[in-house]
Structures are given as C-alpha cells and as structure tokens.
C-alpha cells in the first residue's frame, strides 16, 4: 500500500512537471528556453516511465530526448528570429483556430484514455532485467519487420533530405 502511494506520488509529480515544462515551452519568449523546456518535459515523461517500472523505456526516453531536443534547439536558434527572446515578440498566429484545435484534441485524447478497454490490470510486472530480455526477444522476433522497415524508411528520408538540400547549389553552378 505504501509502495503504491509512493509510486503514484512520483508518477503524478513527474506528470505535472512534464505538463508544466510543456506550458513553459509556449509561454517563454526565448527560443533556447523553449527548446530546453521541451527537453526537460520529455525527461519528466521518461522519469514517469521509470516510475511505472518500465525502466528500459524510461532510460531510453531520457537519453534520446536530450539529444534530439538539443538538435532541435540549434535549428530553432538558426531559423527563428529573436532566439534570445528579449524582444518579446508575439509568436502566436491563427489564435482562434489553434485554440479550437487544441480543445478538440484534448477532449479526444481524454475520451480515448477514459473510454478504452485497456484490458485487465496487471498484478505485477517482471523485474527490469527480465523486461529487458523480453524486450530484446520481442524486437528480434515479432517486431523485427516493423523496426527494420522503420529504420530503412528513416535512412531513406535522411538521404533524400540531404540530396534535396544539396541540389540547389549544383543548379546554380550550371
């Protein structure tokens, strides 16, 4: 009983932290702060995963999101104006449409979460070492096709993006 409430506490804490950081992403004017707030929001989600005893997933989330958000940060600084946020520029556009879309999406997600039949409640979870092994077997077995396809698609996308980016310079030279 005490164990469950500690777990619930931590999950709620990190969940709220994730939401708070997510709000900071849009409230702050500085691009860099926005990117790093998103980073920490994802870290909080990773911590939630660990709290839910999905250790591998949590650690992976924490690791990958840090790298990805940092790379997003540099792109934001490169492409966005006023990355320092000192000008307090209003970065929002299409306000009414976005508010409506946001509300609709929120209601839809909550409806899915509440009304779906998630199956019976798991009484206990296997320990982390066993989970990692099971995950590995799953990846190498049933899910191998999915991940291989995803990997190849990503690789193709990367190569295509690079090729598209390089081309205009070549054209100028002709």
């Amino acid at each position: 009983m005490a164990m469950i409430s500690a777990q619930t506490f931590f999950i709620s804490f990190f969940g709220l932290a994730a939401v708070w950081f997510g709000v900071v992403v849009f409230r702050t004017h500085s691009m860099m702060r926005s990117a790093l707030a998103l980073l920490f929001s994802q870290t909080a989600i990773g911590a939630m995963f660990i709290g839910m005893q999905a250790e591998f997933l949590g650690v992976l989330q924490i690791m990958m999101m840090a790298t990805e958000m940092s790379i997003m940060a540099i792109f934001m600084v490169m492409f966005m104006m006023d990355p320092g946020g000192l000008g307090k520029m209003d970065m929002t556009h299409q306000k009414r449409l976005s508010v409506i879309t946001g509300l609709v999406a929120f209601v839809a997600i909550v409806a899915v979460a509440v009304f779906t039949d998630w199956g019976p409640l798991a009484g206990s979870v296997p320990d982390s070492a066993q989970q990692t092994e099971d995950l590995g077997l799953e990846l190498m077995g049933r899910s191998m096709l999915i991940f291989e396809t995803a990997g190849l698609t990503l690789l193709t996308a990367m190569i295509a993006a690079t090729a598209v980016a390089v081309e205009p310079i070549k054209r100028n030279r002709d």
Partner: protein
Amino acid sequence: MIVGARQGKLSGLRQLVAKAMARELTGFLVPGLDIAHAQGLDVEAAGVRLVASPRHASVLMVAGDISPALRNAAAIIYAQMARPRALLVLGAGGLSPLPSADVTSELSQPGLIDGIAQLRIAFAEGAFRPEVTDFDAPMLHVRVEYTCPMHPEVVQDEPGSCPKCGMTLEPREASANDVDSHPHETHDHHHESHDHQHEVHNHDHGSHSHHHEAHDHDDHESHSHQHEAEDHQAMDHSGMNHGDMDHGSMDHGDHGDHAFMSMIDVTKDLPRSSDGLPMDWIDVPFGPFFPGLPSGLLLTLTLDGDTVAGSSARTLTENVALPHHSALEPLSFVARLSNMEPLAPLAYRFLANQAMENAAGIEITTVTARGRVGALERERITSHLGWLALFGQQMGFGWLLRRAAALQLKFRHANEQAIMALKPDIESLIKRLRRTPLLKSRNAGIGRLVQDNALRGPVARAVGIDNDARSTDPVYTALGFKAISRDSGDSLARLQVRLDELRQSLALIDAAGTIELFEPANIGLATGAGEAFVETPRGAAHLRLTLEKGLVVTAQLETPSTHHLTLTDSLTKQQSLGDALLAVGSLDLSPWEIRQ
C-alpha cells in the same frame, strides 16, 4: 597592499584564502606570450599559471611599455578581472588609464621572479580590505544612443522621434560599427567605448534583439563590466528593444491569415550567407591580447555561426615616427628602429646600420659582415621558434608550445658553441613535428594564398616565389646560401618553409663562424642617400634614408607585415573560425612593425 583588493575584513577564513591566492597566482600576460618570450621571460618557470580569460586571472602582468591604444585595452582587461586582482608592471612606468602598479620590477627574468615574490607577499597581506575603490576609466563608460526600431540607420545622441516614421527612439548602447565609422584619432574616447556590442549590421527586423546584441563577452578588447555594481543590469534592460516592433503590432487583432508573415518574408532583407540561410551575423573581436594570435593585433571577425563572413584587421601598436625633413642622431635612429620591433630587433638594427653605411659610402669588413650574418641568423632562429610556440598554442598543441619556447629562450643570447650544441634539439623538434599525427590534416589546404609579388618572406617562399633579400647579398652567397621554397602556399607549406629555414640558419651560422653585434661604423659628417634590404625573419624590409652632415633627415621604411595584414580578409573569408584563426596565425604577422 593591492589596489584591486576585494572588500572584506582580513581575518580568519579570509586569511587562509588570501594565503592560498598568494600561492596560486594566475596571470594574464600583456601584450602576450610571444613578446614575453622575445624579452627572455619564462612566466611558467616563475611560478605563475597563465590563463586565457581575464575572469580567471588574479594578476595582470605587463611586460614592457605599451602604446596608448594597448593601454586602453589593458584597462578593459583589468576591469574584467575578478577581485582580488593585482597589477605587475615590468620595465615601464605609469600606464594610465591602468591604476598604479602594485609591484614594479625590471624587464628580465630575475626581475620577474623578484616581482612575483613581492606580489605573493602583497596578496597574502592585502587581498581583502575593508574599503576598496572602484576602478574607473573613460573607456569603460557606456555611451547610450537612441535609434529607431524600424530604421536602425537613424541614430541620435538624444531621445526624440524618428524623422522617417515618427516612432519614438529607443535607447541603445553604442555599438562597434557606429564607432568605427569615426576617425580613430579624434574620437579616442568613443572608439574605445565600443564595448558593448559587437553585433551590428543594423538589421531592420526583430531578430536582433536577441542576446547577441548585448554581448558582454570578455573579448579582451571590450568590456564595460562594472562588476561591483550589478545594478547596471537594471540600466541595461532598457536597451535592446529592436524586437519590439511591427510584428507585435501586426498580429494584434489578427482575425485571419492575412497579416501572417512567413519567416521568409520577415527575413527577406537580412544578409544571407552563401548557403542562402539568413542568419544573424555578429562582430567578434579577437585581440589584441588573444592567446594564439600575435599580440597587438586586433582582428574583428564577422561571424555567421561558426563561419567567417567578413573580417577587418588592424594593429593597436604605435606607429614609430621616422624623421621626415628633421634631423636625428644616427645612434638614436638605430635605437628607435630596433626598439620598434621587439620580435626582431637585430634585423632592424642592421637595416638601419646598412642603410646609413650605404648612404655614407662606408664599406664594412668581411669579419663584421659575417658577424652580422651570424647574429641575424640567430635572430631568425629565435623568431621562428617564437612563431612555432605561438602556432603551437593556437593549434592547442601543448608540447610544441613548451618545447619551442624553451628552445627560444636558450637561443636568445647563445654563442656559436652553444648554438652548435643545441643543433640536435632543433633536429629532434623538426623530426617530431613532422611525425605528429593530425598536424598535416590540421594545416593542409588551410589559408591558401595565390602568387602575389607583394608577398615577402616565408609567406612568399611557401607559394613558390623565390623572394629572398639574402640571395643578392654577396656575403650570403659566399656562405653558400640558397633560397628555400615550396609551392602549395597553404599553412602547412609555410610551416615547412620555416622549419627548413631553421636548419638553413643553423648551417649558415656554422659557416659564418662568428656572431657579433658590432657597433655601427662611424659615419662622421657624411651626406648622401642610401637604402638597404634586410631579410627579417618575416620577409624583406626596405629602408631608404638621406643623411645630411651625419644626421638622418628623412627615412622611409617598408616592412613585410604591412602588406601581409591586408591578406587576412581573403584568407578568412568563408572559413570556419578555427581555420580562419589558424590561417592568420600562419602568416607570422608582427603588429609591431606594421606601418600605418
């Protein structure tokens, strides 16, 4: 007792801290490591650790007298240092606007060691004091100007409204670009107060209110950091409102997409880099006391991310006055010329002597000539070793910096036997350098120069131009001199040419057999005009002078670094920052001999 003490009572824990500070002195060297080595100072051996950033330094060490522009820069450095901070001056008197020196000593290694010892005592006793005074200097003052957010080209000194659009002008700190448009001599005050921003390019739209503008980076040249008064922060928040402009107003009452401006529209007037991205360009100064660059050189790079989009280089050293229709004693003329260049004093001394002897029609003996050859070649070795040390520092190559500096100090006053004894050390340095992994990839293809007849010295010889003043000198040809050249013209070729010249100079000293600094021949009351060429370690220097009754009345001097300075722009364009700095470093500029 040190002027830059930190506020507090010296008791208990603070005494322990003061003693610790006295033992671990960190120093910032002005003008720089190359000058210090050329003067024979070995700072690390004296027990002070040199640091690159003024924030980390506790002692500002000034080696020798410096020009007013450099003094202003040094004052800015001093203001950036964290307290408690001390000032050690070697071989110079009062250096205003710096405060009076806490310890003065003579400009020599024993003088340095003595000065450091005194400094340790001063720190242990005076690092903390109950009352301290602010350090203030004219160039540290912030100059506020008023500009229109929509039209940055409108700049006024008083508040008001923009003549073009009527908006109220916003306050902003003086920026480097605006100041540089003034002639330097007359606006010395403003000129040095271009502290606050190195961003410029008066862009019209918002992206500029981002942090780049207010940089307070401690680039050794500009800072107006009054750390005692953090309330300055409050003052400065009022600036920087470039972003506060039309975007906000455009989106007010936005009921649809018609006022939506895409990033492409908004940034259409911004300068674009060669890959088409409009990014912010910042002006960053490198120098005059930048580690790895020749001291006294102010290199301002306009950086587009990590790439150099533009550059401007100039020297902050004083332009030595040469007589022009005025009379100067020959000995003081020689002294003036040789003191001009601390990195190669002998070469200029010989230049002056030879020009005067030519003008007076005096022949010198072969013994004297050979003695001069020996001394000049020794100086060439010393200078190249000094350059190697600086280059090693620039490449982040610790071993090269230490080894080359140690050898340079040994060669400075060595006689022929000592030099021959040091020959194997030079050989092993060259061999180890050639074998260093990553050195070739670091240098190959960087800083490529094309054939240009105005190039001199090793820079020219690396491009394949056999330009060497020694090839036409009979004394040298008698000793079997042959100019060395390579033809790739990049940084690696320049390195290799200088290494080859090290070997060649050793061979020449061996052949000459003697190193003597003979007194200049007595020119009596001769009258006439003459000129001389001397191959200084950086290239051929040319001096023309006229004598009248034994006094020098006019003189014109051309030095190699003057032209080489103009190469920095082409060398650094579109290079990444590290490559750009390396290219400039490989030129072996001497800001002290640049004639303006």
